């Protein structure tokens, strides 16, 4: 038999994955990167410092999501296709592992090339006068490649171990959230997700006297580089070991026997399907992480913040509201639709009940469970405020913000259900939700709060300014508009398109 080279295996990986998805992720990622880096005014004389200070922050999020989604997708396709019994009979497990990693490597390289082109263009067209920081660019690019590969290797491992991509991606998002914040606290990367941030080429210091941010170029942080390399090699070696030990592959929360033995159950069908899936973990844990980070930040930055209810809320809800709630909703919607996309389950459910009820039940289940997140963080906020002895009363607008956030969740749940119905992949709709969320953030910066459900949720949560004006009728109207549109498209799809079955 003729031996084929590694590049051929890489081509096979690209053949298995739709190129359009890769192109879309890269395109949206680089656009969001560009919009974020160039938003707002650049301080005169320190333009490049400002740009290079923004890059590690936004790319910690963007690269993490892009690489997690890609890794989850390329591992999950083998899970779904039961290919783990076939592939190792065709070529060695090591080659299989390396070809998967090369697939991720090509993506992070393409992302870095696109970013470099944009920065060079920016240097020529907008900042021709200033010196281009070539050294810092090269260092940033190398950091991004290492970081991207750490995340890719880690996610391959998670997606392999947790066949339910729900658990794998929840850990990825929870990790990203914790990693970003821990990078603010410590210059060492305490988690794999903090690596890029810890290698930032610019340091930002807040001058409390002038209330200005001071930017300065960093020397290369050798210990941080070493920690990054350790994460890289450790994730590589663990992944290598796991790929080569097939019998330990499927890690699952599932017990061999069900607990319920009664013929009767009061649970609705969608909730029975969620049994034994630890859905509650991210929905309970991520608000706790967000609030804990917020409280630490709130207490540690009292020279900038005020000891009142307003600032406590902005700190506690910041990460949840601005970055993680929408992807969490997306993960849940993907999980509910994955149940039907696997095997031939559409054949069963579509003959058992009306298409309207199937879509409605999934949408309402997604919305109802996602609401727990908001209610939970509101409870944590009230309790923590009381325990910290914050003076005065909780601002009344807080309760209105919680109310409008719940409405926004219903709209986002509708949007994500539509995506997960149409797109069979688990990870792609989740990645799109994350990117939609960052786009929503940018819309907020431009004052277009009510343009999309994502921007509305960020604004409704009031994570940057709880006292900002809140137009409740407009929020409801805009949400209704999106609910009708997305539900309509979902129904149209179910009624007009021949749903594909089989793996």
């Amino acid at each position, binding site marked *: 038999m003729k031996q084929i080279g590694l590049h051929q295996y890489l081509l096979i990986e690209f053949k298995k994955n739709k190129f359009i998805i890769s192109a879309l992720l890269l395109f949206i990622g680089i656009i969001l990167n560009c919009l974020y880096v160039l938003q707002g005014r650049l301080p005169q004389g320190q333009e490049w410092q400002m740009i290079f200070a923004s890059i590690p922050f936004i790319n910690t999020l963007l690269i993490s999501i892009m690489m997690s989604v890609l890794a989850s997708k390329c591992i999950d396709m083998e899970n779904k296709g039961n290919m783990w019994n076939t592939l190792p009979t065709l070529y060695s497990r090591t080659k299989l592992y390396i070809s998967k990693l090369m697939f991720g490597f090509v993506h992070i390289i393409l992302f870095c090339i696109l970013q470099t082109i944009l920065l060079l263009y920016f240097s020529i067209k907008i900042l021709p006068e200033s010196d281009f920081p070539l050294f810092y660019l090269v260092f940033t690019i190398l950091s991004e490649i290492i970081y991207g590969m750490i995340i890719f290797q880690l996610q391959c491992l998670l997606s392999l171990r947790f066949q339910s991509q729900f658990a794998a991606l929840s850990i990825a998002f929870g990790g990203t959230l914790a990693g970003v914040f821990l990078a603010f606290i410590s210059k060492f990367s305490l988690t794999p997700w903090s690596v890029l941030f810890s290698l930032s080429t610019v340091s930002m210091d807040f001058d409390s006297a002038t209330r200005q941010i001071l930017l300065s170029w960093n020397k290369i942080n050798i210990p941080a580089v070493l920690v990054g390399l350790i994460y890289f090699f450790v994730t590589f070696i663990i992944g290598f070991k796991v790929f080569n030990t097939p019998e330990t592959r499927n890690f699952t929360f599932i017990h061999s026997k*069900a607990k319920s033995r009664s013929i009767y159950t009061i649970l609705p069908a969608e909730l029975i399907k969620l049994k034994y899936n630890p859905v509650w973990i991210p929905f309970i844990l991520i608000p706790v992480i967000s609030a804990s980070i917020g409280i630490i930040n709130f207490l540690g930055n009292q020279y900038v913040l005020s000891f009142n209810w307003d600032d406590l809320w902005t700190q506690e809800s910041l990460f949840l509201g601005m970055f993680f709630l929408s992807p969490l909703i997306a993960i849940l919607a993907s999980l509910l639709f994955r149940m039907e996309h696997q095997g031939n389950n559409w054949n069963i459910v579509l003959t058992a009940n009306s298409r309207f009820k199937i879509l409605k039940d999934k949408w309402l289940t997604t919305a109802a469970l996602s609401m727990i997140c908001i209610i939970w963080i509101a409870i944590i906020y009230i309790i923590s405020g009381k325990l910290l002895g914050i003076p005065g009363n909780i601002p009344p607008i807080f309760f209105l913000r919680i109310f409008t956030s719940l409405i926004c969740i219903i709209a986002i749940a509708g949007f994500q259900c539509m995506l997960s119905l149409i797109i069979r992949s688990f990870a792609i709709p989740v990645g799109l939700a994350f990117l939609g969320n960052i786009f929503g953030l940018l819309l907020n910066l431009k004052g277009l709060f009510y343009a999309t459900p994502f921007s509305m949720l960020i604004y409704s949560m009031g994570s940057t300014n709880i006292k900002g004006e809140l137009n409740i009728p407009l929020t409801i109207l805009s949400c209704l508009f999106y609910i009708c549109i997305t539900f309509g498209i979902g129904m149209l799809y179910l009624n007009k398109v021949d749903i594909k079955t089989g793996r």
Partner: protein
Amino acid sequence: MNNTILEIKNLSKKSGSSYRVKNLSMSIPKSCVYGFLGPNGAGKTTTLKMILGLIKKDAGEIKMFGEDVSAKNLLSLLHKTGSLIENPGGYPHLSGLENMQIIAKLKGVNESEIEKALKTVRLYEQKDKKLGAYSLGMKQRLGIAMALLGDPKFLILDEPSNGLDPAGIMEIRNLITSLPKERDITVLISSHLLNEIEQMADYVGIIHQGQMLYQGKLSELESTGENLEQIFLELTGERESL
């Protein structure tokens, strides 16, 4: 009184420029077993999926229980129907019982029926096992139990003997042949296992390359002196290729 449970006229389904099913007509009398025969890729599953509204037809008419099937009455007709299409589905992380509970809820069927359906396919003892741990034969039987929920009058089974061992095949055969007599259920069963159909069916339809080549009573077909296998190979033109 109308004695047919399913009446199909000139049913067609295109895939690009070619036909997956072309001008197919079919008539299934009540309380019989109808064997739907055809080689792999003949269009059997496509036809069954069109009957159940799982995919759209491009042309033709489908009448079930004497009613023209439309988007409006599809669901009410499906509630009188049970089906198992392609490989058996289900949620592998749940037990057999929990899978049945989901289908019972979706069909709006009393959960007390679950026990009866599971006992019919002899899975009641294994109801607490995860579907993921079921053998292919057990999954197939669970698929049939799901189809039997709601006391259907018309059962559509797509290659239900796939992956079963000889004992399992015999068990399914006995179950299917008993349904018309004992429960007044009409069964439409697709297969490419000619011997199986020969032992079960009252009527047969033979489809090849999307077109119906023959349909009628099995006994009439066999009165010509040839067995089903010979007739099938002759009709589908595969005898020459052997």
